[in-house]
Every structure is written in structure tokens, then in C-alpha cells.
């Protein structure tokens, strides 16, 4: 699994792990993110059970295992957090931040040591030493309990499945041609996102944020002007359409 550094400052750094060459081909490619501060590390959408050893191998090259004190699951999907039962064996005192809605469901993945910290519908904050992250509600995009992470200092929005694209395993990590990228994400958004109302509400709230990088869980990262392009495109896209209607 490859590692890219997205941001670094005196207080914290953002890393993304993905493009795992050893991943079985039937499994959707995922981006896992990690925020590292002085004494703590947060794993964002740590991924599926199939990815666990590749993930731990990659993570342990960056930080000692006991430094991973926080996990975040944007929603309940298997590609997001089905590895929980194994992280639970590896981490003794970690906290999992995830929407309150999914607590009793996510526990089915196996959780005896990790503490569940439910994120309320309206979002919240997480302090990692001197870094501050905000939980931004993104319900129904696609999951009915779904949260993004916004870092006002790094100007990074980790947007979960929003902005996701189905890509070749060797695809670059940044969008380099927005128009050419559209076909790779169009069906995904039309089919997986159920609500135009939720989508438009999210777009208007996210426009208020200062964003340098929009980082989805699948596909490529949007930088600079491509962030605005994505928001415009997403706003005008009609979602909640089945395959049949898509034709």
C-alpha cells in the first residue's frame, strides 16, 4: 500500500494510504487517511477486514502502534470499518468516533477494547494534541448517518463517499483533468446518493468552508479550483436514480 503526505505543519500531518497492489481485484479500492499529531494518531475510515494487515504494515512504518489512539468511521459500510474486530485486538485504549446512529450496528464487527464515542447528528469536534478537527454532518450522502472531517488549519475536507470515483488501481491520487474525471464518478453519485435535498444542503454548507483539498474515500483527491468545480458539478447532478432509470 502506498503512502502520500498531504499536509504537514508544526502541529500535525495528514497522510493518505491506498492504491494497494496486493488488494484482491473484486474489492473496491479505498483511500485510508491518518492525522498524526504530537502524541496521537487518528485513522480515518480504516477500511475492510481484507485490508487489515496491509494497513497495519503501512501504518507502522509511520507511527508506533500505541500512538493510534483514535479511529473514525464516517458511516457503517464494510469498506469503511469491517476491520474493526482486528483493530480491536491491536489497540487497547483507542476510541472510535462514528455517528451515534450506527453504534449498535458497528459493534457487530467485534469491539471489546475500543470505546465507541457517538457523534451527534449536528457534528462536533475532536482535538488531537494541538490540532482541531470538525465533524461535519453529511447525512444521506450516502449513508443515513454520515459524517465528514474538516480540518480548518490544513483546509482539508475528508468527504467519505462524496467525490468518490471508480478508478484503475494505479490511478494517480490527484484529479488532473476534471472533465475527464466526471464519467468515473457520475454513476456512483447518482446511484449511491439517495437525496437531492440532502446533497444541496451539504453543498451550501460546504461552500462556506475554506477548502484546499477535498479527499474522498475512493478515487482521487480534488485540489484548488477542482474543489469548486466538484461542488458545482455535484450541485447540478440529479441523484437518487436506480440503474434502470440510468438506462
Amino acid at each position: 500500500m502506498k503512502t502520500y503526505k498531504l499536509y504537514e505543519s508544526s502541529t500535525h500531518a495528514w497522510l493518505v494510504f491506498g492504491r494497494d497492489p496486493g488488494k484482491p481485484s473484486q474489492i473496491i479500492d479505498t483511500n485510508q487517511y491518518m492525522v498524526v499529531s504530537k502524541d496521537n494518531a487518528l485513522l480515518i475510515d480504516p477500511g475492510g477486514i481484507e485490508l487489515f494487515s496491509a494497513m497495519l504494515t503501512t501504518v507502522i512504518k509511520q507511527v508506533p502502534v500505541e500512538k493510534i489512539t483514535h479511529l473514525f468511521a464516517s458511516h457503517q459500510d464494510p469498506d469503511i470499518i469491517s476491520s474493526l474486530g482486528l483493530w480491536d485486538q491491536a489497540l487497547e485504549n483507542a476510541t472510535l468516533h462514528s455517528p451515534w446512529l450506527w453504534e449498535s450496528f458497528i459493534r457487530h464487527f467485534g469491539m471489546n477494547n475500543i470505546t465507541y464515542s457517538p457523534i451527534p447528528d449536528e457534528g462536533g469536534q475532536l482535538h488531537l494534541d494541538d490540532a482541531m478537527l470538525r465533524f461535519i454532518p453529511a447525512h444521506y450522502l450516502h449513508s443515513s448517518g454520515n459524517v465528514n472531517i474538516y480540518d480548518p488549519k490544513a483546509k482539508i475536507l475528508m468527504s467519505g463517499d462524496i467525490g468518490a470515483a471508480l478508478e484503475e488501481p494505479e490511478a494517480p491520487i490527484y484529479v488532473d483533468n476534471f472533465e475527464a474525471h466526471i464519467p468515473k464518478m457520475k454513476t456512483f453519485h447518482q446511484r449511491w446518493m439517495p437525496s437531492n435535498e440532502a446533497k444541496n444542503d451539504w453543498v451550501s454548507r460546504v461552500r462556506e468552508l475554506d477548502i484546499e483539498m477535498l479527499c474522498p474515500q475512493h478515487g482521487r483527491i480534488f485540489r484548488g479550483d477542482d474543489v469548486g468545480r466538484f461542488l458545482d458539478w455535484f450541485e447540478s447532478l440529479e441523484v437518487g436514480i436506480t440503474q434502470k432509470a440510468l438506462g
Partner: protein
Amino acid sequence: MKPGSKKYNYMSSENCSYFVTAAVIAAKLDQATRAAQQLTLIASNAKALALRAGQGAAGFRPLTDFIHKLADVTVSSSKKIDLLATELSRMAAEKVRGDRAIAHFDTVYENAKDSPYIHSLDVVYKRTVEKQQDVVIAYRQQIDRLNEELDVLEKELRAAGILATLSRVEALQADSFYQDALNNVADNVESVAVSIKTHIKSSQSLVAELH
């Protein structure tokens, strides 16, 4: 144990189906419990029969109490074994989970051996292996308890044959009007006992596979 040395004794792939075997045992005992409940019904019917027959089957009456007792013991014992086996299945699944985690950690030792932080995994590895050893001990103890209980139930059921024989003897001495009914009680006690014994026997051989 040295972390990453792969010296940890994993369950082989066939052993990974331990929790399935344990679940099958639980299911068998559930069937045995239901058969035992039939025995309770037979005992109640026998008692009613003894009351109706009165002096016509005087020697049969105390036998019905024994049948009742056998039914009670069998029901509670097979229920207990059912619970033990269900718990065993849970423990076996836990064991598999622990083994999987250790196997994943071994892969990480292999693939991240040059990482400056690789030894931060040592404490995790040691903790998981130690916990796993406790799980294995508890699991073995549970198998022993299950075996003991199966033996106890098997011994209790030997009484069924005696009770059936005694019922037949009483039938010979009873008024001809009640003879068929008494023989019928004997047949029922016997056949239920045979069916429970079959479940026990196959459970015992399944338990033997778990060792």
C-alpha cells in the same frame, strides 16, 4: 514466545471449523432436549393410566414416579449440555478470531520488518498470544465439562431400559384390559431413550473431534 516467529500454534484449517462442530453439538442436544420433554409427557400419561387402573395395575404406580424422575433428570441435563455446547461454539469462534489476528500480525512483522516502529507491535503480539492461551485453556475445560455431562446423561438413561423391563413385567401381572397400555408405556420409554442416546453418542464422537 518471540513475536513474528510463527511458533504460535495456529489451529489448522480443519480446526477452524471447530465452532461449526460445537454448534452442531448444540443442535443435537437441542433435539435431545425435545426428546426428553416427550419423556415427561409419557410419564404423565403413565401416571394417569396407573390411577385409572387402580388395583388393576397396583405394582405399576411406583414405576410412574421413576419414569417422571428420569424425565426430569434427562430434560435438565440435556438443557445444561445444550448451553455448554452453545458456549463452546462461542469460545471456538473467539479462538478463531484471535488466531486470525495473530496471523495478521505475523504478516505485518514480515512486511514491515524494516520499519523503525515494528517493535511497538511486540506488546500487542504478546498480549494477544497470552489472551489466546487463556482462551484455549478455557476452551479445553469447557470440552471436559461437556464430556462429563454427556457421560452423566448416558448413565442416567441406562435406567430407562430397566424401567421399560419392569413396566413389561407389571403388564404381565395387570388386568388384561391394561396390558396393552402398559406395554405401550414401556415401548415409548425405550424408544425415546434410544433416540436420546443416539444424539448423545454422535455428540460424544463430535466432541472427540474437537480435542
